């Protein structure tokens, strides 16, 4: 994904195993923080 591109509506998993789409998080701006490993 490059600057200016529309990001696909990725599907993620919640901690309970259910699915959630990126589009479910609607806001004027979304800060997405991709973590390294949790440990």
């Amino acid at each position, binding site marked *: 994904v490059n600057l200016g591109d529309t990001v696909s509506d990725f599907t993620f*998993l919640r901690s309970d195993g259910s699915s959630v789409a990126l589009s479910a998080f609607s806001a004027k701006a979304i800060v997405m923080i991709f973590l390294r490993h949790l440990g």
Partner: protein
Amino acid sequence: VRDHYEEIRRQGGEVLVVSFAQPALLALYERDQALPFPIVADPSLAAYHAFGLERASWREILRSRVLWRYLRLMLRGWAPQRSNKGEDVLQLGGDFVLDEYRRLVYAHRSAEPTDRPPIAELLQAVCPSRARSAAE
């Protein structure tokens, strides 16, 4: 970001944390960290790859500059932890900002494990008028 979460919310923004951990591990992390914002899992790394997030090499991690940054973090109270079984310790992260139309307006792909963007850059991407008013 946690310290600036309220400011981000006031600007109409939201924070979404993405991890490549399995959901079960995510549940433990969520409970321990008591994060104020949502956290989701991308165990297939589909989004990580789409956003261009790569794996570091061991050589990169063991570079003196990176070790020095880790040392500084430890002096500030951060304690290194063993990785959870099965987690890829070489996978790098990144910080991105999408606008309301899901367009990518800011990207910072970590070049090495301790490489994070200044919070001011993220806030500026969330609220461009903030930067304009600061310049005026």
